[in-house]
């Protein structure tokens, strides 16, 4: 069964469409993740004023770091978008390039987050200090863990594209990774507006 490259590309594109069975299943999984995060947000909102005599948000959050993290994550969504554009154009090397760019931005985000955690802990504001800090580390850390697994997935996909080229299976996996990555961006926006923004406003007025 000989098929032309363009015919193959159409199959890859079809596999990357959002309404395939396996993509639908992935949406269902994402819904369960939404609930998981909702619970962590619930915990945060519930505990966010329980300082137990320890530090308050205004004392530990730094706008500078959060700004950089947010920019890196937003940019990484853009680079992933470009990877998907390259997928639809069938440009293998471009895909790899954009995926690696996404990886680097993700790594920047995570590195920043971790160094911020280390900094806060050094100041004596660790997760075992108060209900507020537990909830903060729990929520932001879970998002960070998701980003970490997303990065492992990214590297795996880079390897697969490099070794196997563009197959329908790989096109379909990239579509799901893209969903996952944009989803994490969305969660981050919620983290930003639930955790950092009120915290900083409060800190400013205190």
């Amino acid at each position: 069964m000989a098929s032309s490259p363009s015919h193959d590309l159409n199959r890859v594109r079809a596999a990357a469409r959002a309404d395939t069975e396996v993509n639908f299943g992935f949406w269902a999984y994402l819904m369960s993740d939404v609930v998981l995060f909702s619970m962590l947000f619930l915990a945060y909102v519930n505990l966010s004023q329980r300082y137990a005599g320890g530090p308050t948000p205004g004392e530990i959050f730094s706008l500078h770091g959060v700004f950089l993290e947010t920019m890196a994550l937003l940019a990484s969504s853009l680079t992933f978008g470009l990877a998907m554009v390259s997928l639809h154009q069938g440009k293998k090397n471009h895909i790899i390039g954009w995926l690696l760019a996404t990886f680097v931005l993700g790594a920047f985000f995570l590195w920043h987050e971790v160094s911020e955690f280390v900094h806060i802990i050094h100041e004596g504001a660790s997760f075992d200090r108060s209900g507020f800090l537990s909830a903060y580390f729990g929520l932001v850390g879970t998002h960070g863990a998701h980003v970490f697994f997303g990065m492992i997935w990214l590297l795996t996909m880079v390897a697969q594209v490099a070794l196997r080229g563009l197959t329908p299976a790989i096109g379909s996996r990239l579509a799901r990774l893209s969903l996952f990555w944009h989803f994490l961006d969305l969660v981050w926006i919620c983290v930003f507006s639930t955790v950092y923004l009120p915290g900083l406003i409060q800190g400013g007025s205190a």
Partner: protein
Amino acid sequence: MFGKLTLDAFHHSSMIIVFANVIMIGTGLAVVAALTYYRKWGYLYREWFTTVDHKKIGVIYIVIAMIFLLRGFIDASMVRAQQASAGPGMEGYLEAAHFAELFTGHGTMMIFFMAMPFLVGLMNIAIPLQIGARDVSFPLLNAISVWLTAAAGALVMISLLVGSFSEAGWSGYTPFSGLAHSPGPGVDYWIWALQISGISTTLTGVNFVTTILKKRAPGMTLMRMPMFTWTVLCTSILIVVSFPALTAALALLALDRSAGTHFFTSIMGGDQMLYINMFWLWGHPEVYILVLPAFGIFSEVVTTYCNKRLFGYTSMVWATMAIAFLSFGVWVHHFYTMGQDPLRNSIFGIATMIIAIPTGVKIYDWIWTMFRGRIEYKLPMLWTLGFLITFVMGGMSGVLLAIPGADYKMHNSLFLVAHFHNVLIPGTMFGLLAGFYYWFPKVFGFRLDEKWGRHSFWGWLVGFYVAFVPLYMLGIMGMPRRMVTYDNPAWHFWLVIAAIGAMIVAYGIFAMFMQIYVSWRDREKNADLTGDPWGGRTLEWAIPSPPPEYNFAVVPEVRDRDAFMEMKVNNRAYERPAAYEDIHMPKSTPLPIVIAALSFVFGFAYVWHIWWLAGLCVLGTVAAVIVRSFNEETEFVIPASEVEADEDAFHRRLKEGGVFEHLQYIEEYGDERTPQGKFVEPTTRATSGLPG
């Protein structure tokens, strides 16, 4: 090196636990020895441990459920025996801590390792067949789910030998389940057993939502789905939306216990009510997760054995959806007494009572289906009738408890214990047992014995009343739940009666295992040659029993509700195509047992704080998944010639079984029968849907 694990963990002060361990290890060794002696390991590995076939996975789930039915029941009997032998002037035979492990273990095992696996097992067996599919959407994920459940069950089992199990009740309320009050390994075992089985269930939910929405045979619109499929769809959606709340609650509790965080502690800004809210945000939907599919099973049973279409299909669908939706708005009724304002309690009380309305609709639909039907009193019909009568009583006591004022009196009393057993046993348990009998021939190719089945039914039914009606009394007399001893002499009599009830249930359980054994012994006599032992109406009865690996040689075309009955009426049943096609099926793989084994070791390592080992297990799981993702040869082909040969053999059996004459009869007289056994007017409803 071994974290907190020392030889002390193997030391048990209670002789009863030592004895239980001897039995557990002895049974385990005997099974291993027998399998080795009969050289069954290779067969088990090829056919069962590595399978991705939904029917076999269903069987594995039910085997797990049966093992835990026994263990859960033994624990319950020990609780009953303790309360019957304790009281004023009597000590009973159990220490308080062991007693607490028993009621915790009983509740945990019955919900997570008996009811849930049983249910998911029946879902696995029936759903793909009912919707005319060759497998679920994600067969590999399905296999991972079943072995994760097994791994979680193994964690519960090993807690008997190494360390101890939780004493914090099946709901693990904080702050008692926190480190300050429960420093031992018990709560950690409980957390990881539930966490792993919960993740397994979430994956199952994702799998079945996708399967039902995306894999239905052409022509099967949503409003043509069998009722069981509908209820499983609603249950799967509930699973996807509610189980993550449990996952979150358990994860945060684990952090509190091992990392020193303060989510749920009573100091440093923790909030114990947060846990309780999260737990019931999952916990209340969970009771509907357990009961909706049972409702679906009763619907299948009633239509099949009354030889009628379901009365009020549309109302049944809407009632199911209404219950599923409402189940998210009532969780506060589990803690009316914990201090929120009366307005909030009233709102949740009313919301709770509203659930009785769609449930009532369902009850009437079943009754109207039976009305003027030709009822065959086969075993599943008995379970259904037992359910209808008993469940209504349980529902009523639920409405009583839903009144916040009344609940202040009954909260945490044995009245509550009587109530939830009164819905779980007739609702879930009877439904599961009805489904077990109903689909058993489909999976194994022979019917279950009717006589022992009836013994089992009466054992369960009578035993239930004798064991639980006294608990209503005791609740009203003021006896709290979970009492190891008590000093009110008036309670003793009723507790002895309840213990007798448990013994009657024991006979029901014994009869069920006898039923399985006897049916297996007489399997030739009970053989189901035609694949349609009950005159079924849905697609699973259109194929051989046991079905071939690929289920349907040709994917059926659905033209009506009760799809197979429509085929019989319109002379389309068992139609053969001009030519068969090759069928692609997923290959077996050891990945699921590898992941499950790693999860088990991870859970064990976490319980004992063996961090390096837990880390290795996570790495191993990620590596296994990545390696698998590079494997592209995940399918194999069943050639058309083989499919055709299978079908030839099936059609020979159909002829021998006289199926075709019977079909002519149906074609002539239609698909519904009067109480006298006559067929009613033929229905001409070839392509259109039925009026609701």
